[in-house]
């Protein structure tokens, strides 16, 4: 139970970072933290107590094995996270070129 709660705490740290920080780079870091919290939670969901890798071998009898599917899905999810982070960082670089600052309180020309 403890690990799930820690996952939730990690997610909330990321969310806090996205909502409260003024620096664009810190917001991006917050998003990455949230992504990792969700990925970690996904892997934890698949874990079984005393489980082992689900590989069939003739000599060992398998009693308890972890669920392999979420691990494959998390790989996909990490790659997607990489793509979104790359786009965000590219936009952040262009914003710095145009505005000369990373402070979002100074980047607010769109109103209404």
């Amino acid at each position, binding site marked *: 139970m403890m690990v799930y709660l820690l996952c939730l705490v990690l*997610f909330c740290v990321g969310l806090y970072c996205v909502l409260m920080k003024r620096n664009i780079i810190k917001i991006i870091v917050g998003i990455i933290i949230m992504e990792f919290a*969700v990925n970690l939670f*996904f892997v934890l969901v698949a874990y079984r107590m005393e489980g082992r890798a689900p590989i069939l071998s003739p000599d060992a009898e398998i009693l308890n094995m972890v*669920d392999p599917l979420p691990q494959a899905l998390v790989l996909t999810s990490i790659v997607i996270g990489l793509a979104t982070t790359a786009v*965000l960082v590219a*936009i952040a670089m262009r914003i710095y070129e*145009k505005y000369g600052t990373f402070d979002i309180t100074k980047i*607010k020309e769109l109103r209404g």
Partner: protein
Amino acid sequence: MIMTAHIIPLFVGISLAGAFITSLLGKKLKMLPDVTGSLTTFALLILSLLSVWVVNVHGILVYNVGAWKLPIGIALVLDGLTAFMLVTVNLVAFLISIYSINYMERFTSKWKFYTLFLLMVAGMNGVVVTGDMFNLFVFLEIASVASYALVAFGTERHELEAAFKYAVMSIVGSLFILLGIVFLYSYTSTLNMADMAHILAQKGTSNIILMVSVLFIMGFGLKAALVPFHAWLPDAHPSAPAPISAMLSGVLIKSLGIYALCRIFYNVIGISSSLSSILMVLGTLSMVIGVFLAIGQWDFKRLLAYHSISQVGYVILGIGLGTPLGIIGGLFHLFNHSVFKSLLFLNSGAVEYATGTRDLQKMGGLSKKMPVTGTTSLIASMSIAGIPPFNGFWSKLIIIIACVEAGRYGYAFWAVLASILTLASFMKVMKYAFFGTLKEKWAQVKEVPFFMKLSMSLLALISLIGGVLLVPAVKEVFLHKAAEVLVQGTQYAVMILGG
């Protein structure tokens, strides 16, 4: 029977192939991006019309990717609702891609535009055809990432700011969706939507389903720009190039937001009366608040963006009612809105192309200089305001009748009120932009080039004759089949797994 199912993966495959060819050769051959963009979307349009016919002849089709048997592998599903959404997405995508032939001349590196555009179409088609939960998330992210890049396409101050805001909010929404999928997987141990619906029906309700519903309403509500989650839309949609604004407002928020929301709530989790009232309240809030915010706007595209929020509210209200008539009204309004709202955004793009401004106060009398743009935008304005005989009138009428029939007089009142306010705000647009005296500044303004005129005229024609879809014979084939899927609810599982 087996062969016809092979049509389904083509919707993703053709658009990805188009994007690949464009990115590979587009830099060298100047004409190629236009050709591949238009041909690819045209092929997709033909295929999607074909899929409507296929659904009517063969019923529901399932394609198993990699020939894995049903609950294990990824399944692609073609049913009435899917065929309906495919026609909507690909029709708008085709008309927008021929519009872009002329419009995108203003930007450098057209091939990048077409590559991203086709990737976005691939993502949207994928979201619509997939029958697998995680696959839905993957396609949703493909479409979203392409759209972040497209919003920032102009790389000026405003575009970048809007794109960053949009990207951050949309990524947070995606993470909520992923978290919801994780909870559903841990509860049911399956990812296939039909299998999931089957297991959920056996296990009954629990608190986990409640939590998943909240996560999905937050996540997909953010993608669909329902009112408490709408803040990104009025920035992102106006900042993108006009064809992309049309694409985002016309189909992206619908296939990523509304379609996914309906599919999951109706066919997988199963709609309950509390969920249905949440949807109706959110829809009414978006409808009324969107239109009130729109009235005060002077930026043409920003005004249209606020109206998107309001019209999406109508769709959600209609679908949330849950009665067969309400669902037909909601889906019909979804189709109509994607036609007339993309037309309006293309009109705003044409005005910007000719005059270089989006401020309504600086325009005036443009109808004399740009007759095609003026006429088509008059048609679209009357359509969105709900004046007979244009298509917007019929769908709003059905939604209001459905509200009254279900005894929801309050919702019907708000729907009528929002419609009147929409009319008021579009009278302002027509008065300031297209009618009145021509300002001296615009004496040299010319009408836009051929392909832009062609695409706008075709869309205007569709909004003029859109009411034909309600003729019983046509309705039976197209709208009714789509509404049937939602009405049947969790029977979906039996139909997929059994067939």
